[in-house]
């Protein structure tokens, strides 16, 4: 049976490896550009998260993949088939919304079986499939209840079961956990990840919660102002942020002004620090140097390390298991760092507010970015 389309994608050869291919995707809402020239390849079975602040275009991108909001330009191919102009019903995906969008007047069983009824399957077949799905999400025995009688977490599981009922090749999750309590959210993270792995269904999840993205996704697409800032595994994103935006959005980081100096050093407040930098940054250019709070070393620092820096602790914020310290470089008030000190460390070294210490900024933990125009 031929699908009446002329649109097998150009990259036919890689069709098996690439399951979803997005090319030059853009979307305007009037004068506002919600998506700019998005490129993305996703492999079959991969769990990809779109991460970014509100208004960054992540939901717009998800809805474009679903066909719910048509893109202004560019193409989307799923499983080698160009679906750029296909309506949602011809795209084969299941979707879970932040609001769950469960049908309030239908029972849990009817909600989960909603898409099956339309496939002209037999009653017995549908009943069996619904029971199987509800067992998978741990809701057996709730068949005849109505959504309003379930907790938020249970409703979320029903929505997931309904989305997976027709065995779609693509699962789309739009902020699936943001309406839930912190505890339920943690448990559901694992459950969703579990089900996804077991079924091997290619999954896109939109979230503004970096922790959620880091813990669940195999790859994270960090977005801002309608463009992709970085694509990478959670570890790459965290350890090797491509831009100052990614560095600041995912995790905490101190960004310090400096100047590129030679091939492997930067100058900050008149001092030289060893740091590797990208080739495209010219010698003598203004840069921003980033370091994560937990990467700052205190224990066993002798002062002879190449990146040693005498600082004063100007503030200690108690956060339970650790303290967040504000460190100001001695003689250079422009250099302010945030560091996380464990309770152990504080006790062992007797650190207090106002104390003068020497810290080490390990060269491999320093990230050098081109200075932002406004910075």
């Amino acid at each position, binding site marked *: 049976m031929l699908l009446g389309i002329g649109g097998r994608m150009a990259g036919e050869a890689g069709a098996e490896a690439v399951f979803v291919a997005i090319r030059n995707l853009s979307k305007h809402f009037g004068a506002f550009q919600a998506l700019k020239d998005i490129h993305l390849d996703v492999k079959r079975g991969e769990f990809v998260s779109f991460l970014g602040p509100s208004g960054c275009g992540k939901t717009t991108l998800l809805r474009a993949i679903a066909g719910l909001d048509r893109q202004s330009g560019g193409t989307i191919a799923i499983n080698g088939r160009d679906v750029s102009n296909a309506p949602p019903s011809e795209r084969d995906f*299941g*979707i879970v919304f932040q609001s769950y969008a469960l049908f309030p007047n239908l029972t849990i069983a009817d909600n989960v079986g909603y898409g099956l009824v339309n496939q002209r399957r037999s009653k017995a077949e549908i009943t069996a499939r619904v029971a199987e799905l509800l067992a998978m999400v741990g809701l057996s025995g709730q068949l005849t209840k*109505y959504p*309003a009688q379930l907790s938020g977490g249970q409703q979320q599981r029903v929505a997931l079961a309904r989305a997976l009922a027709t065995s779609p090749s693509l699962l789309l999750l739009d902020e699936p956990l943001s309406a839930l309590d912190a505890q339920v959210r943690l448990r559901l993270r694992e459950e969703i990840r579990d089900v996804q792995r077991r079924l091997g269904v290619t999954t896109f999840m939109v979230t503004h919660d970096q922790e959620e993205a880091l813990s669940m996704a195999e790859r994270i697409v960090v977005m801002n102002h309608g463009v992709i800032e970085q694509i990478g595994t959670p570890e790459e994103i965290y350890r090797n942020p491509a831009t100052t935006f990614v560095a600041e959005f995912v995790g905490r980081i101190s960004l310090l002004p400096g100047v590129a100096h030679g091939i492997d050093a930067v100058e900050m407040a008149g001092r030289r620090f060893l740091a590797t930098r990208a080739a495209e940054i010219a010698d003598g250019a203004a840069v921003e140097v980033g370091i994560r709070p937990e990467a700052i070393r205190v224990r066993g620092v002798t002062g002879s390390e190449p990146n040693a820096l005498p600082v004063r602790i100007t503030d200690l914020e108690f956060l339970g298991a650790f303290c967040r310290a504000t460190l100001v470089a001695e003689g250079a008030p422009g250099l302010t760092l945030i560091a996380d000190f464990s309770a152990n460390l504080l006790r062992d070294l007797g650190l207090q507010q106002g104390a003068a210490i020497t810290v080490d900024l390990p060269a491999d933990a320093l990230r050098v970015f081109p200075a932002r125009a406004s910075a």
Partner: protein
Amino acid sequence: MSGDARLRRPLIREQTVATLLVLALIIVLVLIIALPLWSLLSKSLQNASGGYVGLANFATYFATPSMVSALFNSLGVALMTTLLVVPLAFAYAYALTRSRMPAKGVFMGIALLPIFAPSLLGAISLIYLFGNQGVLKGLLFGHSIYGPIGIVFAEVCYCFPHAVMIIATGLRLADGRLYEVAEALGTKPTRVFFTITLPGVRYAAISAAFVVFTLVITDFGIPKVIGGQFTVLATDAYKQIVGQQNFEMGAVVGLILLVPAVLAFFVDRQIQKRQVALLSARAVAYEPKPAPMRDALLLAFSSVIGLVLVAMLGMAIWASFIRYWPYNLSLTLAHYNFGEFEPGGWEPYLTSLAMAGCVATFGTGLVFLGAYLVEKTKVPMPLRSLAHFLAMLPMAVPGLVLGLGYVFFINAKSSPFGWLYGTLAVLVINTIAHFYTVGHITATTALKQIDGEFEAVSASLKVPFWTTFRRVTVPISMPAILDIAVYMFVNALTTISAVVFLYGPSTKLASISIIHMDESGATAPAAAMATCIVLTAIGAKTLHVVLDRLVFSRLQVWRKR
């Protein structure tokens, strides 16, 4: 590619179906709303033989003293009524929302009573009370109830529920925190009233004033029954069309009637935009504190008003059972033997029932489906905006004007709809169009409360939108659908102004029969027929409340937590 069989393109796409349905809706709305209005407009610019004469008809109108006097009469009566109703309604609404007076529910119900009666029922009651044979005639000190006094009095009662509802809504929107802050700062109650209460409700009061003004200036029933020699625009239009067959002048009067209504429409829209901004999502509902003096005063005031409203309804009902007012007060059912006073007998009442039933059935179906298509489908925005605009249009068109538009549209030489004239069908269509907007707003509001992703979820499950409409949207919206049906039914029963130009010999409605019997001096049978309508309307509303409870308890178990 054979494995992708379930992704095959269907024979007809949902999008195509939705677009076709929206186009059909637009065509229907253009036919039943836009084209009749266009006919009215073009008629006013033509002479009797259909030639274009520019504004000549308007020049003639303003050069004819009797016509201009009707215009000023209308403006005077409408202004007077507005000045009386708004303060009274404010005090009554204040009692309902800002006091701890007892029996608020009863007083709310009484305030709404006039809605269930044709406007002219109040006028009939006034005739019994203050007319030539009236028991209270002496209170008028020699003035006649037939004329501006009677019109204003009856209009005040007729418009009262509308003003109370609008102002009470405005008062309910108050943020309780503002009052707590004022109290914490030691503000005097009178200052609180003038600096917080009044400013908070001013938009609602302006809106109510415009609505009342429009209702009065376009009302036909009351001036017809109690106006005597005092002509107003609405009765003048009737005289021009039905009496003198002067269609051009009728069209001019119709357009003049359109001016205040259109003005009111736009003022109201502006006001609603501002009113929304007044109340933030974090506002706390105002809870009145006990104040025995205030509550007693408000209770006394509300009781007086309530008594007047009940009397205005009750007098006509009572009179319909009285043998010969005011000489023989024994009770009788003789006036309900309509065959003696009206060639059709009970026929008009049955026609009204049939008409109202059809309006409620087909009107509700069309309105709800239309609102769904506008609100929930993915049809290109310009098409949906056009449909929405057409649906909102009747709000700005008084019934009388729409009725005139229908006369010209159907009877135009080139019209293919001439055969519709005088049929039940045209009465039903016209009445649906007349009351379309309120139903559309009710349906749209209900649909907006439904999760916007239902259609998206259905699409992902490959379930077409019409299945979700049937299985989910309609069952969830049942309360709103019943509301619309009852609203349409009650209004179809009591309406006069639009249908008075359109009925035929076999489709005379109860409300028109009342006018005819009253014209021929059979006031008691007219009151009897009006009583039948009131009782039917109240009966329908009661049935609705009961049904609503049943629907909630039986069919909507899913709403319970």
